C-alpha cells in the first residue's frame, strides 16, 4: 500500500497532469518574458511571444539555457523577482571561479519543502522518523533542502552536516536515527569506520538511506544495503533547478527516479544536435521549471546523461521516471559529492604561476573516499633551487583548491613533458574509479 504526501498530484492521470503543465508553462514563459531581460532578448531573437505557447509541443521551440548563461548573469541578473522578495540565496561552483547563483522567493522555499517532503514519503519515510541529515549545510542546497523537507513532513531532523564520522556514528546509535541522507560513497566510508569501531549496523535503527550528489551503480546499491542494513534509494537534484528533491526513486519499485512533473518538465536531447529524443532513448536531460518565481529556467541543459520512461509504475505515481544518471556530457567531475571542473583547477594554477602549466588530474577511490591528485609539470618558470620553495608552491596550490573548490587534493610535482600532449583538447583527467 503506497503512502503519498500529495496523492492527488502524485497519481494525477496523464491528461490532467499535462493540462496543468501547459497552464504552468504558459505562466512561466510570460513571467520570464516580462521580468528577465535575458529571456526577453533570447525569446525575441527566436521570434517567440508568450501567447504562442499553446501546447506542450511548443516547448521545443524555446531556446536552451546553459550554465554559461547563468555565469554571465552573475550574480542576480536571471532573477525574475525583485531582491526584497528573495528570501534565500544558494550558489554552486562555477568554472571561472565564480559560483552560479540562485534565489528563492517565500513561495519557492515552500514549494521546495513540499517537494522534498513528498520525496521523503516516496522513499517510505514518515512523520516519526528521525532523519540523520549528513548533507553539507551552507551555500550548497543539499543540507538545507533535505532539512526543510524533513520539517515540513513533521519528521525529527538532526542537522549533523558532513564530517567527524566517529561523532556521526555515536549520534546514530544514541539518537536512534532511522533515516540517513548523505553521498553514497560517504555511507560506505561510515560503514568502514563503524566496522573498525565494532559497531554493527544491524544494531542501529536505520531503515532508509537517501543517497545523491554523485552517480552510483546498482552494484553499489547492493553493497550499501548489505553493509548498512537499510533500503538505499537514489535522489536527484541540482541547485539551478531547485536543489535535492527534483527526482527520487520510489521504495515500491526501486527502478527509476520519478521527476515531479507538476513542477518540472523533462526532455531528453541529443547533446550534439539539440534534437528531442523519444522515451527510453539515452541523452542529455533538459529541465524547464514551471512553478519557480525567483529564478525560473527554460529548457536548462543539465549535462546529465539519462533516459526517460512514462511506463506506469507499480507505486501508482504517474510522473515519468529517469534512469540512474550514468555520466556527464561535459567534463565535470564529482569528487566526494563536490562538482569540480578541470578548468577551475587550471584557473587556479594559472593565477599562481602566471603561465599556463601542464597539469593532469588523477581521480581515484581509496577506502571508499574519492581522492584527487593534481600533477603539475615543473618547468623553468616554476622551478626553484630550494626544496622549501617547491614544497610551499605545492601546498599553496592545495590550499587554493581547498579554499575555492572545497576539495582536498594532493599536488605532485612532475618532470616536464611527462604529461601527454595532444593535438586537440588536452586530456586533463584520468578517472580510475569504476
Amino acid at each position, binding site marked *: 500500500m503506497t503512502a503519498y504526501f500529495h496523492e492527488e498530484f502524485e497519481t494525477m492521470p496523464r491528461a490532467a497532469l499535462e493540462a496543468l503543465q501547459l497552464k504552468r508553462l504558459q505562466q512561466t514563459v510570460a513571467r520570464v518574458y516580462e521580468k528577465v531581460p535575458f529571456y526577453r532578448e533570447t525569446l525575441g531573437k527566436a521570434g517567440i511571444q508568450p501567447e504562442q505557447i499553446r501546447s506542450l509541443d511548443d516547448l521545443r521551440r524555446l531556446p536552451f539555457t546553459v550554465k554559461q548563461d547563468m555565469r554571465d548573469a552573475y550574480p542576480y541578473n536571471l532573477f525574475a523577482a525583485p531582491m526584497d522578495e528573495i528570501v534565500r540565496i544558494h550558489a554552486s561552483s562555477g568554472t571561472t571561479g565564480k559560483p552560479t547563483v540562485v534565489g528563492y522567493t517565500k513561495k519557492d522555499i515552500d514549494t521546495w519543502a513540499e517537494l522534498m517532503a513528498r520525496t521523503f514519503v516516496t522513499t517510505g519515510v514518515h512523520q516519526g522518523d528521525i532523519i540523520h541529515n549528513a548533507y553539507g549545510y551552507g551555500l550548497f542546497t543539499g543540507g538545507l533542502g533535505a532539512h526543510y523537507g524533513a520539517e515540513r513532513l513533521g519528521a525529527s531532523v538532526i542537522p549533523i552536516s558532513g564530517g567527524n564520522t566517529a561523532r556521526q556514528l555515536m549520534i546514530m546509535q544514541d539518537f536512534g536515527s532511522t533515516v540517513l541522507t548523505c553521498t553514497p560513497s560517504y555511507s560506505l566510508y561510515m560503514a568502514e569506520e563503524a566496522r573498525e569501531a565494532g559497531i554493527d549496523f544491524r544494531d542501529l535503527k536505520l531503515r532508509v538511506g537517501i543517497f545523491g550528489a554523485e552517480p552510483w551503480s546498482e552494484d553499489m546499491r547492493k553493497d550499501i544495503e548489505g553493509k548498512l542494513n537499510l533500503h538505499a534509494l537514489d535522489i536527484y537534484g541540482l541547485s539551478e533547478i531547485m536543489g535535492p528533491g527534483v527526482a527520487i526513486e520510489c521504495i515500491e519499485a526501486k527502478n527509476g527516479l520519478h521527476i515531479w512533473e507538476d513542477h518540472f518538465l523533462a526532455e531528453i536531447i541529443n547533446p550534439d544536435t539539440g534534437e528531442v529524443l523519444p522515451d527510453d532513448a539515452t541523452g542529455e536531460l533538459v529541465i524547464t521549471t514551471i512553478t519557480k518565481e525567483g529564478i525560473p529556467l527554460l529548457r536548462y541543459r543539465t549535462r546529465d546523461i539519462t533516459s526517460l520512461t512514462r511506463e506506469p509504475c507499480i507505486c501508482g505515481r504517474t510522473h515519468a521516471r529517469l534512469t540512474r544518471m550514468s555520466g556527464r556530457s561535459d567534463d565535470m567531475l564529482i569528487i566526494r559529492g563536490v562538482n569540480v571542473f578541470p578548468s577551475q583547477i587550471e584557473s587556479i594554477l594559472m593565477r599562481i604561476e602566471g603561465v599556463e602549466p601542464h597539469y593532469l588530474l588523477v581521480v581515484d577511490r581509496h577506502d571508499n573516499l574519492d581522492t584527487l591528485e593534481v600533477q603539475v609539470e615543473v618547468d623553468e618558470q616554476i*622551478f*626553484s*633551487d630550494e*626544496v622549501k620553495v617547491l*614544497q610551499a608552491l605545492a601546498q599553496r596550490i592545495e590550499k587554493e583548491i581547498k579554499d575555492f573548490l572545497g576539495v582536498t587534493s594532493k599536488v605532485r*610535482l612532475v*618532470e*616536464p*613533458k*611527462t604529461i601527454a600532449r595532444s593535438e586537440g583538447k588536452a586530456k586533463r583527467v584520468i578517472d580510475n574509479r569504476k
Partner: protein
Amino acid sequence: MQVEQISIFIENKSGRLAEVTRVLGSKGINIRALSLADTSDFGILRLIVDQTDLARATLKEQGFTVSKTEVVAVEVPDQPGGLAGILEVLDKSGINVEYMYAFVERCGGNAVIIFRFDDPVSAIRVLTDNRLKILEGERLYGM
C-alpha cells in the same frame, strides 16, 4: 667570487638520477661536487661540473628542468673543528646558510665546502674580513 652550480628537478621515480649522470657522462662532462636534497615527492640534484653551460644545455635537451645558481666555495682547515670555526663566524654576523655540501677535491691541505647563502654578497664580505679563503669558480671546475 662565486661558483656556478646547476640544479635539476628529479621525480622520485627509479632511474632518473642514473639518467642524469649518464647524460653528463656521454658528453664528457665531469662532476666535481654533488648534493641531493630529497622529499618524499621529489628531489633536487645540485651539481658543480667542469662545463656548466654544456651540462645545462644537454640536460635541457633531454627534457630535464635545470636552473643555474651561484654558490660560494670556502676553504676549510681539514681538521676537527675546522667547519665549526667557519659556521661560528657566519653565525656571529647573522649570515643565513640555506644549504651546504663538500667538494670532491681538496685544495692543498684544506677541504672545500660549498655554501648557498641567502645574501652571498654579505657572506663573502664577512668571510674575507675574517681572513677565510674563497675559491673562484674557474679554479674549481678544473680541479
